[in-house]
């Protein structure tokens, strides 16, 4: 490159185009790998999300100009942090001509703050953790936590988030603006919570990651059952979290997501219909994800400090280990649900346990439990309980009751593949009856 023989102007031009193309690719790659870590550090140094985003953008713009002339710096990440910070201070100073309070901020950020070149790598790892905990702070609404996490930790654009959640972009943009304003104005600290607060605050982070995963895994509304991007992003986020903070429940959640994700290819028929676990072609399950999931569960269980996510992962693992649906160890699954109900009592878990009991002891036993839950009125608007009820009635030959419950379920879901599945069951019932 750049050997300067200058055979012809055309060639020289061609070579420099290649070089700049190559540089652009390198910078794109660095952006992909490092931009979130640079952003996390800039947020800490500048104390403001918007300033940091602006600084990040300017640092990369400068890199594009300067690295072409001077070559790549030895450590691009620290270079970007440093340039971003100086650009931000510069910007504040320029604006400070119109606002004297900004001048003070610029001075505080100026020469006396620590030199990012001296920052150790481990500290920078910590900063992404700081960013995750701040974006998932419980003082922000869950919607805002999700949007802000995807925007700043994952680097999604506002349009991408809007598209993934089938929400108009201005709504997402407003959520993000408000969340940033609240972090700034209510002084939500930019830090990893103290040891005492960690379990509760970690719950909030895991909840956000699992919501993102579920949104991708089973889109609650609309045509596509699996919006793969969100699920794989949630898994990526789960891996990052485990890398930064190897808490058992973080490991358990990652295992749970991997084991659920392993069934993706088997979950929907080529014509887009939902296929239930017991009817799935298990040769389509992703073995690599299962292996990784099983290994992580062992790790989480060994800690003896595991919780609901790990137990749910252990249940998924029993399915993953069974070569056929008939070979499933329902005894173990019911036992795990018993533990899960202790750890995290909820009617939805009772419902899942009822389905497992039906598999172990027959439909009648499951039906008794489901009807008890319905009688309490806890899940009357939840479509799964009605379709589970319908399924057990169907298997017991209670056709009229099965039909009524499938119809009830159909009223309660907008998800296209779910609806098609329920409609198919209903058709089958009518055909068998006639």
């Amino acid at each position, binding site marked *: 490159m750049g050997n300067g023989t200058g055979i012809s102007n055309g060639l020289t031009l061609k070579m420099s185009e290649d070089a700049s193309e190559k540089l652009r690719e390198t910078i794109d790659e660095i952006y992909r790998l490092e931009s979130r870590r640079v952003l996390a550090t800039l947020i800490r140094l500048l104390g403001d999300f918007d300033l940091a985003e602006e600084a990040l953008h300017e640092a990369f713009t400068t890199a594009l100009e300067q690295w072409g002339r001077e070559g790549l710096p030895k450590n691009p990440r620290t270079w970007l942090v440093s340039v971003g910070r100086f650009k931000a201070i510069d910007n504040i100073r320029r604006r400070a001509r119109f606002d004297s309070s900004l001048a003070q901020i610029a001075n505080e950020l100026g020469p006396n703050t620590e030199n990012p070149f001296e920052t150790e790598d481990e500290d920078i790892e910590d900063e992404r953790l700081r960013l995750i905990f701040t974006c998932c702070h*419980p*003082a*922000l609404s869950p919607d805002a936590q999700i949007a802000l996490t995807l925007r700043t930790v994952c680097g999604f654009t506002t349009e991408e988030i809007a598209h993934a959640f089938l929400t108009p972009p201005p709504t997402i943009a407003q959520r993000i603006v408000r969340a940033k*304003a*609240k972090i700034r*104005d*209510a002084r939500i600290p930019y830090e990893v919570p103290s040891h005492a607060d960690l379990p*509760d605050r970690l719950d909030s982070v895991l909840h956000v990651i699992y919501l993102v995963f579920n949104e991708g895994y089973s889109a609650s509304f609309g045509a596509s059952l699996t919006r793969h991007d969100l699920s794989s992003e949630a898994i990526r986020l789960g891996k990052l979290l485990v890398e930064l903070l190897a808490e058992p429940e973080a490991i358990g959640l990652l295992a749970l997501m991997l084991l659920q994700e392993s069934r993706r290819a088997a979950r929907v028929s080529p014509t887009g219909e939902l296929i239930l676990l017991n009817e799935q072609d298990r040769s389509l399950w992703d073995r690599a994800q299962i292996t990784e999931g099983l290994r992580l569960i062992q790790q989480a269980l060994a800690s003896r400090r595991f919780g609901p996510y790990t137990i749910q992962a252990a249940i998924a693992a029993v399915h993953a280990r069974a070569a056929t649906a008939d070979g499933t160890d329902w005894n173990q699954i019911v036992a795990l649900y018993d533990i899960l109900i202790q750890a995290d009592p909820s009617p939805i878990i009772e419902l899942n346990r009822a389905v497992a009991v039906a598999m172990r002891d027959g439909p009648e036993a499951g039906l008794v439990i489901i009807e008890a839950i319905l009688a309490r009125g806890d899940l009357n608007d939840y479509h799964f309980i009605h379709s589970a009820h319908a399924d057990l009635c169907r298997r017991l030959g209670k056709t009229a009751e099965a039909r009524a419950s499938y119809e009830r379920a159909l009223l309660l879901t907008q998800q296209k593949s779910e609806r098609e599945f329920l409609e198919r069951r209903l058709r089958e019932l009518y055909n068998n009856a006639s």
Partner: protein
Amino acid sequence: MKFLCVVYEEPNNGLGPQTEKEADDLVNEHLDYDETLRQSGHWLIAQALQPVETATTVRMRNGKISITDGPFAETKEVLGGFVLIEAKDMEEAVQVAAGIPSARMGFIHVRRVYEFEKK
């Protein structure tokens, strides 16, 4: 005796400041009124609050802290601040409250403060 003047804003009633200049003027007016109350001997403490969007709700239940976002600005009336005053009776407290600039845009609740003694 002490009275608390609780200041409520009604952000959507169109009576609030419309321009940055009007907002600045309002802040100055508030600070001037604080000074007036200091000189008349009514003033104990007064604080204005950051917008309700910055609020966080905290509960302790079964020894566990629960933190949530909100309350939200969707409610018609939002708490904007308070002035704690010394006044001889409710009549005088109401006169003081009426002079708080926010009374023209929102409204003020005047509440007498309990003065407990340990029994």
